[in-house]
């Protein structure tokens, strides 16, 4: 167990691992998303309340879920890099941030497009979407901080610290926005009736969730390879990897 953990701190090993995993992740992501699309757009029956508009759930919820999960992964990887001084932790954090931001954008855009037929407006300050918007700001702040430093090691560590501070804040922000919303608005339409969802509607959602997670893994591997090369360009093993 520990030897495996130590190997994960070794750049050439992680580089090779990412390269080896990439095609498998990409292929299985394509399969899961493809199955989810067929299930969500064709097989699942229209919702009795929302009609066919509910089909937006199959891109909205995976985007929202992954945006939060990627943030947690990014913060955890940054913390590992900061505490144990493991360069690969920072590489994972740096590779995750843009992907997480893009998932946040998916959640926001699809959420507001869903809001129009449901609430009559694109932006109703729904608590979940508002939290998602603040999450977008947190992502942008972390990425700006990392790129503001000329010394990339310092940028990595500063971004990692901000990520940890953000992780403590995300639940507080979510709670405060929900608390605020409960004062100002009547009950909003519950988008997800997860427990009461029939199987024909549920399995495409799970398939899409899995597909988005696998897709994140694939893009992470691709970006991770780049981040490792940037951080290790002085090392001898890079010569073989680059092939010059």
């Amino acid at each position: 167990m520990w030897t495996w953990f130590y190997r994960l701190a070794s750049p050439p090993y992680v580089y090779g691992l990412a390269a080896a995993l990439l095609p498998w992740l990409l292929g299985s992501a394509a399969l899961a998303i493809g199955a989810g699309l067929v299930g969500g757009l064709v097989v699942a029956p229209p919702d009795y309340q929302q009609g066919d508009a509910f089909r937006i759930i199959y891109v909205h919820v995976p985007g929202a879920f992954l945006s939060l999960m990627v943030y947690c992964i990014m913060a955890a990887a940054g913390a590992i890099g900061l505490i144990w001084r493991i360069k690969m932790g920072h590489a994972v954090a740096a590779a995750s941030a843009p992907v997480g931001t893009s998932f946040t954008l998916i959640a926001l855009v699809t959420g507001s497009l869903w809001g129009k037929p449901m609430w009559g407006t694109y932006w109703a300050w729904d608590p979940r979407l508002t939290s998602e918007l603040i999450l977008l700001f947190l992502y942008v702040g972390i990425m700006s901080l990392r790129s503001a430093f000329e010394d990339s090691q310092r940028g990595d560590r500063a971004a990692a610290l901000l990520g940890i501070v953000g992780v403590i804040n995300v639940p507080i922000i979510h709670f405060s926005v929900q608390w605020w919303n409960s004062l100002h608005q009547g009950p909003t339409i519950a988008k997800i009736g997860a427990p009461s969802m029939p199987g024909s509607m549920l399995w495409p959602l799970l398939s899409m969730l899995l597909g988005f997670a696998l897709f994140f893994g694939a893009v992470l591997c691709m970006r991770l390879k780049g981040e490792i090369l940037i951080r290790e360009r002085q090392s001898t093993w890079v010569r073989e990897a680059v092939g010059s």
Partner: protein
Amino acid sequence: MTVTTSQGIAAGSSPGDAVGAIGAAAAIMRRELSLSFRRPEHLVQPLVFFLIITTLFPLGLSLQLSQLRDMAPGVLWGAALLSSLLSLDALFKSDADDGTLEQLALSGQGLTVIVIAKTVAHWLVTGAALVLASPLVATALDIPASAFALMMSSLVLGTLTLSWLGAIGAALTVGLKRGNVLISLIVLPLAMPLLIFGASATERAISGTSAAGPLYLLAALCVLATTLAPFAASAALKISLD
């Protein structure tokens, strides 16, 4: 002048000693306060900025006075957060640039003590001054005098919490040339809960309903920030300094 002060701090404290740490913190705070009172523009500028922002909204919206009262808490709190942030990027900058910070850190006192002393001193100069000036702004925004006590206590909690968050932001960006926009970008999203609870407490104080709920939540955030932020900010300073 600054060098002799910090040497005095180093000489007058025994490292690792709690009493020494408090003494050193008091010495740093005295130095910070005397420095800012020697340059009163540091004191005045955030206050004027606070007044200007609160003037922008009524003029821009051209409302009836009764509607002004409805949006007063949000305007007041938005302006308070922005003007407290304005002065924050200077929190560690000048001391980091001239080497005082490293010298203080080497003086045997942990960075955490320095962070606490400087942040509290900064809050006394900007945050407390802002709280004291708030009745003026509140009157202009048609907030009744009966709400002042609750409004001011919510502002005390909110600006103090923001100072802790801002200390983290200032420590993270201390080595950067153009850090001031970045500080706002980093700190403002984290400060959203403060705005929500603070504005809501003020709103309830105006309408005469119980403001205890949001005030307790603000106090909880303040305690959380006061316990965790000094460590986060000193870790951030360590990243920027070495």
